[in-house]
């Protein structure tokens, strides 16, 4: 080993190089500044290493980005650790760079001859923000996508070149495939290269002048030992954060059609709130979101000249520094507090989390080449729910969907089950059955004497006992899911009794297998396969086909009647919403 090292040394003089690197004199002193600097560099190192590792599994296209990040986070061995370290190093880099600047301002690190090092330190924070913004898009999830859309539009507000700049960043007028590849190129090549050059340049200036005035020369080796300890502490802390959060967050795949309550990254929350102060017109908004932060950065960049002998530092340095720090914290606090008490926001947030969890479950089976959004959009369970919300929940209630106060149709929990039918035929006009809709008072109870029947007039209930009522309910509820399917229940005697009652006594008004309705009222529905998937599908597509209800079902005189959906939903969507509604009425989910 020694021989090999000597052989290489003879040809490269690496020993001399290493020795001069360790022994070269640096200006010591300002331990906090150098510890903060080392922490920033350590984070950058972790980001570079984990970044390259992530690149071995990441595929930047709208179809594959989310799926590949999901794969890293949930499937690849130790993937969550690598991604978690990358994510937490990025967050920490931002905090540490800000602290570094604050310390520099307090310790007068900007004074001659350190102005350039001071500007480079400010630029570190700027690059950290740029890396955070570009990196946040790469998972192509809801949070990153929507935040970039909004930020792109804010760039577009800039007078003159705004629109062009926005199109340059997004790769066109919409955030699509080229926006992702551009952000990716910036994130993994352009910005890190700038970052590295900047750190090296800063290093060589500090080697020459030290962090603050008054330091004495020490050999680099002494500083190096301390730096290594600091870096190790940073790495351990990043592992702790990763373990605590178990990786990094991943929301559901970006969906441009969703009602997502977009919020920026946490370090941009102060600007998010500040924007509201400047909300009177696009020019003002551009000021709040771009010129104010630019002015703050400019002020700190000019500190070497602002802080002059004779001017009190309390006014030139400390007051602005604390104003920015406290102002930013207060603005972010106001924004978070408002969201925490905003019911509509919390509801959309909960919806987003629900879809995110479902997307991860779905992706466990693998994502088709059409991509993760396609997977989420066409999953029967998720699609059924969103179809129900969009088309059914304005009148019906099912579980936590639909507003009971605005409902004008039956509640669909347990709809079509034995219990539901037994309760419904006893009291059809109850609000959870037909009481709120056009069929109110149209169906008599099977066992309660009608109120409008004059006393003394003879009246026979349609079922003579609770057993008969139970038989009717059991028979109706246990018919097959599709025509021709065998009944689901096995008690043949009860089913036969129920069917006999239905075909003998209900067909005065109803149809059963196409026969009945002796009074030609044209209102009561077909009872064969009532509540089955086939019946539901037919009802959703068109309630007036005689398969369920009849021509009167769409009569304008029937106020608030159920509309037909076969003209605005595809047959596949009608099938999904029918299956979903029926499954969820029974407390099940779709496979």
């Amino acid at each position, binding site marked *: 080993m020694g021989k090999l090292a000597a052989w290489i040394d003879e040809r490269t003089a690496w020993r001399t190089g290493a020795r001069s690197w360790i022994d070269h004199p640096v200006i010591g002193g300002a331990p906090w500044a150098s510890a903060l600097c080392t922490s920033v560099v350590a984070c950058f190192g972790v980001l570079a290493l984990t970044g390259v590792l992530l690149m071995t599994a990441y595929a930047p296209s709208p179809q594959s980005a989310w799926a590949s990040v999901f794969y890293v986070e949930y499937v690849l061995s130790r993937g969550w650790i690598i991604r978690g370290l990358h994510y937490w190093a990025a967050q920490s880099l931002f905090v540490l760079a800000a602290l570094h600047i604050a310390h520099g301002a307090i310790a007068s690190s900007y004074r001659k001859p350190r102005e350039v090092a001071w500007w480079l330190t400010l630029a570190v924070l700027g690059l950290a923000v740029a890396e955070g913004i570009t990196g946040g898009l790469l998972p192509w999830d809801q949070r990153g996508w929507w935040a970039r859309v909004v930020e792109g*539009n804010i760039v577009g507000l800039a007078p003159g070149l705004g629109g062009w700049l926005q199109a*340059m960043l997004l790769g066109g007028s*919409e955030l699509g495939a080229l926006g992702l590849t551009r952000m990716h190129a910036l994130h993994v090549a352009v910005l890190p290269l700038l970052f590295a050059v900047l750190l090296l340049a800063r290093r060589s200036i500090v080697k020459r002048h030290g962090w603050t005035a008054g330091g004495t020369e020490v050999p680099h080796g002494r500083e190096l030992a301390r730096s290594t300890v600091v870096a190790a502490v940073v790495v351990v802390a990043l592992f702790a954060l990763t373990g605590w959060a178990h990786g990094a967050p991943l929301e559901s795949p970006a969906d441009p*059609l969703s009602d997502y309550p*977009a919020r920026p990254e946490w370090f941009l929350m102060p600007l998010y709130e500040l924007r509201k102060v400047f909300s009177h017109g*696009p020019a003002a*908004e551009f000021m709040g979101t771009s010129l104010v932060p630019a002015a703050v950065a400019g002020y700190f960049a000019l500190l070497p000249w602002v802080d002059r002998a004779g001017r009190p530092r309390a006014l030139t340095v400390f007051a602005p520094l604390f104003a920015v720090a406290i102002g930013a914290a207060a603005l972010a606090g106001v924004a978070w507090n408002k969201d925490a008490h905003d019911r509509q926001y919390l509801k959309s947030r909960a919806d987003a989390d629900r879809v995110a969890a479902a997307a991860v479950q779905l992706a466990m089976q693998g994502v088709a080449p059409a991509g993760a959004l396609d997977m989420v959009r066409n999953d029967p369970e998720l699609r059924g729910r969103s179809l129900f919300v969009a088309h059914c929940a304005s009148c019906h209630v099912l579980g936590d969907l639909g507003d009971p106060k605005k409902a004008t149709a039956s509640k669909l929990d347990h709809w079509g089950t034995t219990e539901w039918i037994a309760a419904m035929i006893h009291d059809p006009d109850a609000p959870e059955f037909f009481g709120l809709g056009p069929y109110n008072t149209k169906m008599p109870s099977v066992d309660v004497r009608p109120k409008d029947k004059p006393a003394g007039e003879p009246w026979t209930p349609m079922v003579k006992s609770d057993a008969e009522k139970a038989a009717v309910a059991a028979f109706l509820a246990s018919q097959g899911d599709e025509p021709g399917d065998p009944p689901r229940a096995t008690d043949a005697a009860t089913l036969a009794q129920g069917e006999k009652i239905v075909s003998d006594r209900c067909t005065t008004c109803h149809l059963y297998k196409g026969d009945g309705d002796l009074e030609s009222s044209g209102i009561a529905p077909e009872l064969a396969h009532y509540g089955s998937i086939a019946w539901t599908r037919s009802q959703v597509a068109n309630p007036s086909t005689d398969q369920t209800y009849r021509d009167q079902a769409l009569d304008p005189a029937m106020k608030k009647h159920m*509309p037909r959906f076969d003209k605005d939903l595809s047959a596949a969507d009608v099938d999904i919403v029918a299956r979903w509604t029926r499954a969820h009425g029974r407390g099940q989910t779709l496979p």
Partner: protein
Amino acid sequence: MPEGPKTDRRGALQVIAVTGGVVGAGALALPAARFVVAPAAGGAGGGRWIKTVALEALKEGEPKRVALVADHKDAWTLEKQVELGAVWLLREGDAVKAWSVVCPHLGCAVDRSGTGPGFYCPCHDSSFDPAGRRLSGPSPRDLDALATRVEDGVVVVEFQRFRQGTPDKTPMG
């Protein structure tokens, strides 16, 4: 050694180095700049007429959010018949009003208001009345109305995107 010729030679070397650098870098820079700028050069394209739902599926006075299904091209990807946008439709007799769901402020999706009869943007709290007029919040203009017509009982909408954040409605390509 005499001074003159050495200075001359240095000057000549400088000229050669600078010329070489400019020619080499320039030859690379021109196509590189064109390459980077190209995707940003989107013209002001017109709208696309897209069939949506049956007129009878819309209830008078109740806005309905409808997805627009058509072919979607994104750089090298062509997706056949996907949901590429959405509109709010409001029936008024035999005519239909349509608004883009994209908030004219900064581009989030506008939802029905949870508290009133109109529309609301969940990102920066812009609110609009049921006719799409701006009520409060930072939006610089009303919701973007889209042209509609009814063909054989089906509502057809001219789908179009507009620049966000400006008081006037500027179509985007």
